[in-house]
């Protein structure tokens, strides 16, 4: 008899829990638009503020470099990618893409398709030249792609130190610009960010 009572109690408890959960889900989440450039300090992981800061500083550094200021024509650059050497998950394309967008907008630098964008480029050329669907006069011909004079590549690294109360993270973005013809390093810069979380 006692066993039956305890089983019933358990059922009632589970049911009440389920009701509570369902009630919680039914509650509408509050959505607000915030300032995309506002400082975000949720935790020490790589965040939007870090992305904005690093990309902006790097862009300024490239635009101030002799490669850009000293050439008559805007130099043609390709992005070879930024490697993630941190323990976090960071989409490094977001960093390189933001830097490229800012540089392109400045009008002082020109970019050509990078390796990661080549598949689409090749597919497009194949479609225009090899399917026989397009008029010869209007097709983008093969063998006329513009080669870049410079190549930008780099890496992002992090050093993490923590104890019971403090967690300290140091992010370092290192970019290098090479002359594709000579292999010479024509520009190089580091940008750092330190984030500390304490209880």
């Amino acid at each position, binding site marked *: 008899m006692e066993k039956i009572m305890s089983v019933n109690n358990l059922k009632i408890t589970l049911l009440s829990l389920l009701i509570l959960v369902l009630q919680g889900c039914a509650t509408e989440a509050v959505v607000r638009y915030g300032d995309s450039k506002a400082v975000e300090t949720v935790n020490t992981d790589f965040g939007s503020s870090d992305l904005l800061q690093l990309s902006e500083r790097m862009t300024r550094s490239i635009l101030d470099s002799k490669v850009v200021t000293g050439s008559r024509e805007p130099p043609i650059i390709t992005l070879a990618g930024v490697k993630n050497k941190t323990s976090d998950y960071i989409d490094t394309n977001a960093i390189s893409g933001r830097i490229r967008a800012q540089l392109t907008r400045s009008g002082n630098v020109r970019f050509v398709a990078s390796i990661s964008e*080549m598949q689409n480029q090749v597919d497009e050329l*194949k479609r225009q030249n090899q399917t026989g669907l397009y008029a010869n006069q209007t097709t983008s011909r093969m063998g006329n792609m513009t080669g870049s004079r410079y190549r930008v590549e780099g890496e992002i690294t992090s050093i993490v130190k923590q104890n019971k109360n403090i967690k300290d993270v140091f992010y370092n973005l290192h970019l290098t610009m090479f002359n594709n013809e000579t292999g010479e390093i024509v520009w190089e810069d580091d940008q750092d960010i330190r984030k500390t979380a304490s209880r």
Partner: protein
Amino acid sequence: MLIAKTSSMFNLFAISTLLIASPNVLGQAISGTPLPPISSVPEIRPDGSTPSEVSVTKGKVESFKMTLGGGSSSDEGSKQPVQIVPKIPNSVAVTDLSIKKEVKEFFYDEKFNSKASIQTSPSSTVVTDGSTNSTSASTQSINGQSEASYSKQFGTRRVISYSEVRGLNADIKSTLIKAGYKVVQAAPNVAKENENDNYFNVTERINRGDFRDAQFVLNGTITNVEVRNTRDYIQGTSDYSYRLEHSLIVEFTLINTETLQVVASFNAMGTGQDMYLGKSNAIFVPKVDRITRELLSSFSQDSQKKLIDQLPPINKETSIFNVFSSKPEVGVGDPSTLKVYAPGKSGGGSQITPEKDPVVIYRK
């Protein structure tokens, strides 16, 4: 002695032939009277008139000598006159592009010969019948001969051939024509049997008259022809680029045919390619016409540019236009070009009115 005899016999034959042909000629020549023209057809001059009088220098035939066998003679009269042909000014003979092809090929030759023969001599029987002894003998001989030979040869051999490639220098000819030169097509350079590098000897061709009366000759020799067929992986994709490329390097030399001076010299290069993008197992069928078109286009551009840079200026005093032009140059001072404009009666438009006393403007 024998030559002298033959010579005298020939003299007699020649004289007799002359006598048969025209008995009066020899008599007149010897007597010193003027000779009539050999042909009875009157000479017609380019302007249509005929010469009214034929002048023949008087003289006597004192000696008559002929030699046989083409031997050298000390007599000045037997020397052939050297004909000096004047060069056409500002003319260029353009040769087709000479090429030396060298091919290494594998050869394999295997031979086997066998020969066998059997000879049988007829049998001979000797029978002697004597009173006391009787002898009987029989002989027969058979000869057999067998011969076999086997040879095997293999290896690589080098085959060299010399020829000319046509249809590559049409744009160069057009450039020369536009620059004011008269272009002459050179005679083809046909390779002889067992030809060697002397095939490229331009001086010999000049002396041979391959370039007629051209003042210059633009000689082209193909120094390098390359065909590249490649398949390369395109990084960042799953595709390959298949490429067929033809390239050509030609050495040009512009030589003055009179002085043999090299007036201009340059190397021109042309490349043409066809590409295909596809997966690793794609079948690439190149468009040869596209490759040829690109090759010709780039080769023409390069050669034209270099030729124009080094081309000697036209000698206008002896320009072909002045030599062949019968029409005098119209310029300042020519009354036929003078037009006098006077205001029209009904206002507005102008009319050309003939002047009674034409105004003549003289050159300075």
